[in-house]
């Protein structure tokens, strides 16, 4: 009897070790196969790997999974047309659950798998953690959703690009729109997360720089808390005539519904984490009238329409958040490789900065810092259960 249990344990240990060694053997073979590539030749390999990194599990998975779908659709589309420079595109995904330490693991895996172009990461914090690794290995990274401004504006990461405008542009638009609505006292709420608090801090900064509008409350809520009535009471008590919220749609919908139920009818403005159909679905009737900034409307864009149709056909559902941005990023990356003729870092980055590419979010080219020229934000409002752009 004892023998059996210990045998099972031994087997488990051996399996684990074999898995480890098995992994190595594969890697060694791959290294031998790409031995000639390592000598410095950068002729296009028969297979072009597009890495996708982001939150594919955990509570932020709904923001990361659409990017995998987007990459797969773009790969399928380009492969059907003969591939990129004759090489078939293959999508390899790494999960980081939006956690920085897992992001570095994912990044090192990309490096050791010799992936040259990466679509990701999803969360700004994870991206920040992974960028030094990518920079050192000269891997081009393009994010559909990491909006933290220093990622491009600090100039530290010339290998980083994004197909979405940074947070301070968003915040500036939000504040000027709030002023335009005639709001004088704003309660700024955030979800204590990197993105939400960052956005809220920018908003506070811009409001304080303006006359005629002031911040009467600056508070963070704990995501996942059981109820938010205390914060709603505080908003009421502060005498604010408008709320700006930085964060994602679950907290936004809880706060908005709490506010409306308590009879607080003041305008609720938020960011692109909330400008998502899921918000409307979850908040139901309380979503009506909510403002949110989001990437400029591109429902007229033919590439976008084609992408959404392809998604519906392939996956049988509507695409999720950041799908258009991810689709555009995949297109931009692969297009740049095509233009550069190889995956050489200098050539690809040059191509990204000089050549325009038609994407689902518009005709894009990237500036010297890595931000996309041709994307910006607009303000949307929920009218009759749909987000409508406010001119």
């Amino acid at each position, binding site marked *: *009897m*004892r*023998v*059996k*249990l*210990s*045998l099972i*344990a*031994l087997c488990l240990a051996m399996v*684990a070790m074999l*898995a*480890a*060694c098995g*992994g*190595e053997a594969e*890697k*060694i073979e791959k*290294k*031998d196969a790409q031995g000639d590539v390592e000598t410095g030749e950068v002729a296009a390999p028969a297979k072009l790997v597009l890495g996708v990194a982001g939150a*594919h*599990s955990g509570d932020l998975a709904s923001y990361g999974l659409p990017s995998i779908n987007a990459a797969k659709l773009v790969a399928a589309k380009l492969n059907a047309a003969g591939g990129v420079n004759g090489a078939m595109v293959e999508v390899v995904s790494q*999960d980081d659950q939006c*956690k*920085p*330490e897992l992001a*570095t*693991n994912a990044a*090192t*895996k990309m*490096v*050791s*798998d010799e992936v040259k172009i990466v679509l990701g990461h999803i969360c700004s*914090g994870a991206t*920040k*953690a992974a960028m*030094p*690794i990518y920079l*050192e*290995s000269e891997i081009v990274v393009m994010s559909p959703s990491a909006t*933290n401004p220093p990622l491009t504006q600090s100039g530290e990461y010339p290998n980083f690009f994004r197909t979405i405008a940074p947070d301070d542009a968003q915040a500036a638009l939000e504040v000027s729109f709030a002023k335009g609505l005639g709001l004088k006292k704003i309660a700024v709420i955030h979800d*204590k*997360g*990197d993105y939400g*608090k*960052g956005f809220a801090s920018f908003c506070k900064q811009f409001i304080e720089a303006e006359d005629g509008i002031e911040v009467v409350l600056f508070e*963070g809520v704990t995501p996942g808390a059981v109820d938010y009535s205390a914060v709603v009471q505080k908003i009421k008590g502060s005498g604010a005539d408008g709320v700006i919220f930085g964060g994602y749609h679950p907290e936004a919908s809880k706060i908005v519904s709490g506010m409306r139920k308590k009879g607080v009818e003041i305008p609720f403005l938020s960011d692109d984490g909330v400008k998502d159909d899921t918000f409307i*679905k979850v908040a139901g009737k309380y979503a009506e009238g909510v403002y949110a900034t989001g990437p400029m409307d591109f429902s007229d864009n033919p590439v976008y329409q084609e992408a959404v149709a392809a998604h519906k056909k392939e996956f049988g559902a509507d695409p999720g958040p950041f799908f258009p941005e991810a689709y555009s990023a995949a297109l931009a990356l692969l297009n740049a490789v095509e233009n550069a003729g190889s995956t050489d870092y200098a050539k690809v980055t040059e191509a990204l900065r000089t050549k325009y590419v038609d994407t689902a979010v518009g005709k894009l080219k990237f500036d010297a810092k890595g931000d996309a020229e041709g994307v910006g934000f607009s303000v949307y409002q929920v009218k009759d259960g749909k987000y409508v752009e406010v001119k």
Partner: protein
Amino acid sequence: MSNLTQDTSQQSAMSFFLTAGCDSLPHALKKSFLAAIWFVFLTFPIMVIRVDTIDKTVVWRWENMAYIALSIFFGSFVWRWLLARKELEKDETKGETKIEALLTVIQTTPTIKFSLLCLIAVIAVVAPLKFTFLGSKLQFFDLYQTNIMVSCLVYVVLGLGLNIVVGLAGLLDLGYVAFYAVGAYAYALSNMHWGLGFWFALPLGAVLGTLLGVLLGFPVLRLRGDYLAIVTLGFGEIIRLVLENWGEVTMGPSGISKIARPGFFGMKMSIIDSTIYMYYIMIGLVIFTIFCVNRLQNSRIGRAWLALREDEIACQAMGIDKMKTKLMAFALGATWAGMAGVVFAAKTTFINPASFTFWESAIILSIVVIGGMGSIRGVIVGAIILILVPEYLRDFAEFRMLLFGAIMVLVMVFRPQGLISAKRKIYKYKASNTASAGNE
């Protein structure tokens, strides 16, 4: 259970498997059938029905019912068999498994022990390096694997540290991650503000950890058992929340990035070299930790901890200063966490409060308990399993955490004392000139 009274050697293994825990085969079949029906009922709403309240659609997945029924039907046989074996095992000598016996043999024969240790040392040292052996390129660990191993070794150190508090002293600490966070932030902040290097930060992290351990130990001296657990959990959360909200000092949720990696006499290193360097540092740290914990275990204070764990009142009656002993346990345990925190910050070069939640504490506690409380080898095995298994389960992608939870439950149910339980020092006296052949 009539089966136990029969001569089990006569019963075939198959028959035992089928009828474990029941009176006869038809009874066993009936039990399994009922279990299958129960689970089908249980999982009916969640597994079979998927309601989309937005689109107003319902998806009925009847095939899931069939899967559940079949797997539970067969699984229940396996379950009962394993449980029955566990019961039988309890009746036999409360001794060790074959593995533990093997380990004891190894440890008591010096030649085998040294050669095995040397072999492990050589493999560990050589693993991340590329080298040519007999004409073919070999490398045990590539960059990714080395990175994972560094993570694993950090958890080994954390596990050994928590082992002091939970395993040796018996104080249930659910907020261990607080010390880990303090070490990491100490390095990150001092690096950011004053450019403090890794090697200076390491003792700094240890000292801060110790101080915080003493500080946190004071209020909890009077608490017993589960109250201690919740207070330490509270402390862990308080530290994390302060780190998150005190943005002016700790940079809040945006975290601190570009933390310097450990330097080697001022040399600039690439990512690959840096990771390998970190790997060696960690191996050194782990060896140091094992050495220290081993020495502590067999020292006066170690024995005081064991006494405290077994029976607090008897311990006091024996004249051991309960307060000092508890504080020492917290302080020493926290020291290792502080050091591990510094290494963690150096390894990931970016930290934010989200890495230091209660979940981390729970994982570290699981490492200690699943590995075997109070046993150094057990904690190492526990760390290896709990950190490496999810990595290698990446192929299973979404089922990863599900399997992880299931494995935790299963290991606990079938081996509650942990995989490798602690070994107390046993003194064997060789019979010399006595007539009796007794030697135990």
